[in-house]
């Protein structure tokens, strides 16, 4: 942080006679320190660069402010919950609930999404239904949703401005006085972009540091085999560290939709029942699964894809053998597939002190 201090008062004093000396006034101009995202080598070699909006470059002070805001219950109407209550580091920034509890015990209708590697969401459509375009805009929703933080931006800004710490932290982060909702969203988005998960057992095996077990290797083969799991068309392959296509599919959960997902956002009935493909990283920490948290265990998930598919007009063509209920995996293949999926979990990520208060 460069700190430029202009002693206007001193200059004034020099210009004036001894009798007219004014009290010194100190104007401090802060210049945020630019930082680069610490991109793992495999990411930079394998996939396109992350998305960093030109109007919200990462800075040391912006990230620090975003982290403080993320863990601060001051953002909620009764100051009872923070972002981290539903997005806990220990759970790869989701929680264990089917539907998270907001202020006054209110519950939403979708499972809290885990947060990591968000800077590589190239289409920048966030939430299960893609309703938020851009990470900064995503921040706006939970603060005012009555089933989440239930606050108003006017109150949030007033509370932040009235605090002892925040005015100067915002000034340091953005190089100017003043707090508003845009700065709050930008700071939190900066912090969220730093949440990079890249050190799972599978990552280590790609780097040649360890070997997978025979079961895990077979699980990967099931995953990549079009005649067995065929998971790779939506969830990727070892050449892409994200383990998601970051787009929207109807994966055959229901024949009739209680929640139409993307269809409500786009207005196109062809999108009914489509939800964002979640990353398969960190599944060990992110149960329950699916947009509505209907599956408690990975076994339930695999059983669903194997025997539980439901036909509908918008079911994705990639869902195979729908008439038979799914891909009909053997019990052995199911177990091995789960063993492989668990190698994508990153213990270092959930314990990273940079990501905890």
């Amino acid at each position, binding site marked *: 942080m460069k700190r430029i201090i202009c002693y206007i008062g001193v200059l004034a004093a020099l210009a004036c006679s001894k009798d007219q000396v004014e009290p010194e006034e100190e104007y401090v101009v802060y210049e945020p320190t630019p930082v680069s995202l610490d991109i793992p080598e495999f990411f930079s*070699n*394998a*996939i*396109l660069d992350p998305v960093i909006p030109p109007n919200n470059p990462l800075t040391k002070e912006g990230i620090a402010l975003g982290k403080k805001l993320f863990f601060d219950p001051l953002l909620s109407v009764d100051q009872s919950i923070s972002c981290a209550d539903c997005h806990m580091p220990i759970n790869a920034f989701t929680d264990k609930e089917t539907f998270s509890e907001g202020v006054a015990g209110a519950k939403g209708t979708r499972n809290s999404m885990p947060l990591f590697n968000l800077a590589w969401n*190239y289409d920048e459509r966030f939430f299960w239904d893609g309703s938020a375009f851009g990470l900064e805009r995503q921040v706006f929703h939970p603060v005012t949703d009555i089933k989440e933080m239930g606050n108003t931006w006017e109150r949030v800004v007033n509370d932040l401005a009235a605090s002892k710490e925040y005015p100067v932290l915002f000034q340091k982060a953005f190089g100017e006085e003043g707090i508003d909702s845009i700065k709050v969203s930008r700071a939190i988005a900066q912090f969220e972009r730093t949440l990079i998960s890249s050190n799972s057992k599978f990552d280590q095996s790609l780097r040649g540091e360890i070997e997978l077990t025979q079961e895990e290797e077979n699980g990967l*083969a099931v995953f*990549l*085999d*079009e*005649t067995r799991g*065929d998971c*790779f*068309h*939506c969830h*990727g*392959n070892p*050449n*892409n560290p994200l383990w998601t*296509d970051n787009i929207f599919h109807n994966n055959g959960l229901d024949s009739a939709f209680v929640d139409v997902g993307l269809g409500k956002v786009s207005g196109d009935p*062809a999108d009914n029942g489509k939800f964002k493909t979640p990353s398969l990283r960190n599944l060990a920490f992110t149960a329950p699964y699916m947009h509505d948290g209907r599956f408690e265990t990975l076994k339930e998930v695999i059983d669903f894809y194997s025997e539980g598919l439901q*036909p509908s*007009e*918008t*079911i*994705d*063509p*990639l*869902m*195979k*053998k*729908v*008439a038979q209920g799914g891909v009909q995996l053997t019990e052995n293949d199911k177990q091995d597939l789960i063993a492989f999926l668990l190698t994508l979990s990153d213990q270092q990520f959930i314990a990273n002190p940079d990501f905890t208060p």
Partner: protein
Amino acid sequence: MRKFILYCTLGCLLMFGCSNDEDLIDEEANVSVSLKMQHSWDGETIAMTDLNTIKYENANGEKMSIERLRYLISDVTLEKQDGTIVELKDYYLVDITKEETLVIEISDSIPPDTYNNISFTFGFDNEDNLSGIYPDLNTALWNVPEMLGGGYHFMQLEGKFINESQVETGYQYHAIKAVDNSGDEPVFQDTFFTVNLGPVTIRGQEELKLSMDVSEWFKNPVQWNLNELHSMMMPNFDAQVMMFHNGQNVFSLVED
């Protein structure tokens, strides 16, 4: 002798100076050329609004829809009248649902001329089809698993059809390099192919219209039976070879 060397040097300088100027003038006359990708079904344009609806009928009489269509073209070349080849070596992933992928600038500097042929490779040839080396294609999850030889997909055409039991069923017409994994050692067969579009005259800035007739993938020479072949076609050697044959006539230049 000294005068001779001086005159030679001046002569050379003048000569090279003139030729450089001519090159500059030539380059200034060059124009950009792009390909506009269009898609049709038996000659009828496929618009974005035509996707996701069962409205097409293939040569085998099956009613079907198109939900996704992505394909890779590479090594676009122009053949000059003297037979030399202008290589515009690159690759492009076309996605019918993404408008920005439907116009491909193949060069920003081509001399206006009449060319004997414009051609490209459908998919990747073996020199280019190397696993994991293209970050943009990895990002698009365009990879082929190593158990099938690695490299990249050539095409993903997906949708639904009405099967013989009158049930809407998904199909995944995915084209890759053919591999037979039934023996001890995998057997590969190339399925990329060169598409020769014929002569083209580049006058000014040109946007050449290139059309894919999607119905051709199901028609000629193999009348495709979706009831028999609609799923899990990547590891199906024979299906890949049939796609190769049916792909030969799907592309054409569209006259203005």
